[in-house]
């Protein structure tokens, strides 16, 4: 176990290194970024001065080494646009994004499991057909589209939910203000529903389909038949015997789900004016705010690597045949 973790850690460092190198090169190779940081009417002298001040006139490898040097010390540099530390830009927006993604993931998981199970156990009935139709529909709708439709109908025309905006939950919690946090819950949930559903829709549909088919697979296996033959209750068979095994492929997908959720977040945060990391990522790449882009890239790859490690660990628990190390 220890050795396994050590190796994974080493691999992770390698991965992060590769990720930074790639993003660094792609941001710099496309030409001089200086022009993005000067006024549209700046003179050549002003441009040259800015280029020098930002260090873009130094050789690329020097710039990269300097960047890595700071990174190792935990310094991600400051935003070239707002001059604030890049990490601070991320962490102030992170709570909103965590609220959104966790909510979306909960939706995707908690709804897809019963839906998938229902479809599998009622195979061939109208239930099954209806669920699968819905699932396939959900998988073929671009998320910005779903978001805009929800906003216009549920938000504007029917006035059921707020159109856009964010009520903080994690922020007051982190600040130790539990009263505000609890008081905010009802309104926060109202604001979460539409963006959450928009993000979750694709995963929800796909996962429901996955669970259905892997359940069908497992239900046909010998040991389930044996369990049934033993006279166990159908519920016990499904939950205790079949479901646990049907969950294995599902968990693997969850690890990869993260990158997917992030894609949804960029679009959905734009549609619903959600003050999160997705928009920061998009804006900072658009402005080629190199330190912020680098920081987000490193941050997300760390998160990704961490989550996948977690998935492996869960995986090992679910499937006793797999031994780590």
């Amino acid at each position, binding site marked *: 176990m220890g050795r396994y973790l050590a190796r994974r850690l080493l691999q992770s460092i390698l991965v992060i290194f590769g990720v930074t190198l790639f993003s660094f090169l792609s941001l710099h190779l496309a030409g001089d970024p200086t022009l993005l940081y000067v006024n549209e009417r700046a003179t050549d002298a002003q441009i040259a001065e800015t280029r020098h001040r930002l260090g873009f006139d130094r050789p690329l490898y020097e710039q990269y080494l300097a960047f890595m040097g700071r990174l190792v010390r935990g310094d991600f540099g400051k935003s070239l646009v707002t*001059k604030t530390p890049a990490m601070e830009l991320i962490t102030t927006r992170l709570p909103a994004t965590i609220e959104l993604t966790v909510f979306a993931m909960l939706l995707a998981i908690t709804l897809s499991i019963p839906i998938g199970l229902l479809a599998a156990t009622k195979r061939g009935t109208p239930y099954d057909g209806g669920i699968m139709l819905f699932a396939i529909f959900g998988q073929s709708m671009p998320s910005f589209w779903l978001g805009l439709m929800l906003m216009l109908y549920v938000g504007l025309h029917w006035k059921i939910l707020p159109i856009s905006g964010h009520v903080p939950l994690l922020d007051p919690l982190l600040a130790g203000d539990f009263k505000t946090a609890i008081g905010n819950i009802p309104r926060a949930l109202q604001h979460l529903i539409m963006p959450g559903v928009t993000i979750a829709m694709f995963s929800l549909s796909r996962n429901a389909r996955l669970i259905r088919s892997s359940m069908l697979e497992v239900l046909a296996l010998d040991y389930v038949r044996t369990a049934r033959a033993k006279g166990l209750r159908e519920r016990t068979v499904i939950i205790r015997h079949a479901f646990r095994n049907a969950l294995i492929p599902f968990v693997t997908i969850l690890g990869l789900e993260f990158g997917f959720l992030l894609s949804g977040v960029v679009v959905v945060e734009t549609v619903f*004016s959600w003050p999160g990391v997705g*928009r920061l990522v998009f804006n900072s790449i658009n402005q080629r705010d190199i330190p912020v882009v680098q920081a987000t890239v490193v941050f997300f790859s760390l998160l990704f690597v961490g989550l996948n490690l977690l998935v492996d660990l869960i995986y090992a628990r679910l499937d006793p045949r797999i031994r780590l190390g």
Partner: protein
Amino acid sequence: MSRLRYAATLLILVALIVGALPSSPAKAQAPGPDEKTLVIAQSQDVQSLDPPQVGSRTDDNIVSHMFATLYEIDDFGNIVPFLAKDYRISEDGTEVTFVLNEGLTCHDGEPLTAEDVVYTFKRAADPANGFTGNTPGFVFASVAYKDARVDSELEATIVLERYQSIALGLLSEVHIHCKDSYEKMSLEEAQSNPIGSGPYKFVEWVKDDYLLMEKWDEFTLRDPYFDRIVWRVIPEASTRTAELIAGNVDVITNVPPDQHAAVNASGNASVVPVEGLRRIYVGFNFTDNFQSECADAIKKTEVRVALQYAVDVPTICEALLGVPCERATGLVNKPNDHPDLEPYPYDPAKAEELLDAAGYPRKGDGVRFECTLMAGRNRYLNDVNVVQTICQYLDDIGVKTNCQLMDFRAEFIPLLVNQQAGELFFVGSGGGNWNALYEMADFASENSNPNYGRWSNPEWFNRWRSLSNIRDPQEERKVVLEMLEVFYNDPPWILLYMQPDFYGVSNRLDWQPRRDERVITFNAKLK
């Protein structure tokens, strides 16, 4: 693996993520509109609240409510006193001395005196600070700023390299702040902790969400109606419109023309069209950066004149901008434009005739020559559609035009400032209605931006240089009119239109937006 270890790993991961989060004071939800609260939605978040770093329209709108200026350009284009009550210009025109009102203070209570005005200018100009905003990047370059000095407690003098008749108007864009408070702050702190000098005081800024400001009662030069202004960030146009219709937002900018009917039909809000000052045009690239038949052709005056007749500007306005418009005759807005010039009419037959005569007949495939037109996306009103339509008009008279639309900041601007943005480029240049020279300064030199196409007609530039020796306004006006004729007859642009601006305004509000794209709400009140 034991359950314990598993739980521990999970815990560590969660702790890592939570540990990375800040323990800042709790954020709240963006306040909604009420009796005394005005809510304005813009498409972008603030980048900087430090006045000399402010460069974008959205930042300037916010900062203009918190920081006052020496003089101010009012809603009608007049230059009126603000923090300063008077000014005088020295004999040779290189020194402008401002006389401040008495008893001014900044938001932290510090008295605002001539020393603070000088500090504002020196701080913005100091290269060590590396500011790139509007003040050092545009104003100082345009007025040829040299230095600033304190004359007395309430008198400060700004020293310029040479006389400029537009100096006062330009200096009215500099937001004044106090010395002691800003000396105490690092550049980084100053980005997000504005200590202002204007009618509203900064309260809080929740990044990418909203910024809240409150009326500062000790400010006596203006008396705005609203006690609080909330500036929300809503990036998506449809969401902004939806929030306006739902009554959660009082003012939005840049309502897409195709949504006007929906807003007006809602009963909650209306679209207020404004004759904007931004001059939209297609520039000709006179450099030798492109080796093509098109590049050679557009160097000829006849060809450039011919292309004017090819584009139906009134129809573009009506269909794509949502209001009728008059085609521009030059680079100067009303009322300072040339009164006797007639807009080029839409007359494709004449365009074809002129091109035939200029030696560019249609070839076998119906094409005279092939040009590339580059443009940024989503920067100006409906630009993506306008640009494609212009390309179609040029195609129609046999000038095959390859339309290239790209990201405005990241791709187009770098090409534009290096004269690489095609033989033709689509741009909008911010204008003013207070002085023709302010707008004509786009062509202040043959070799520098914003003369992006490097037009070099000596008839224009010789006159431009002669202007710095002319003090008599009538004499100046005469030269200006001559220059506008030169511009009209040897056009460096395909003349298009002054961009109309559309503000979505809640029906509860009594407010008239300005022409210069600035959202200033000192005169807004409830109906």
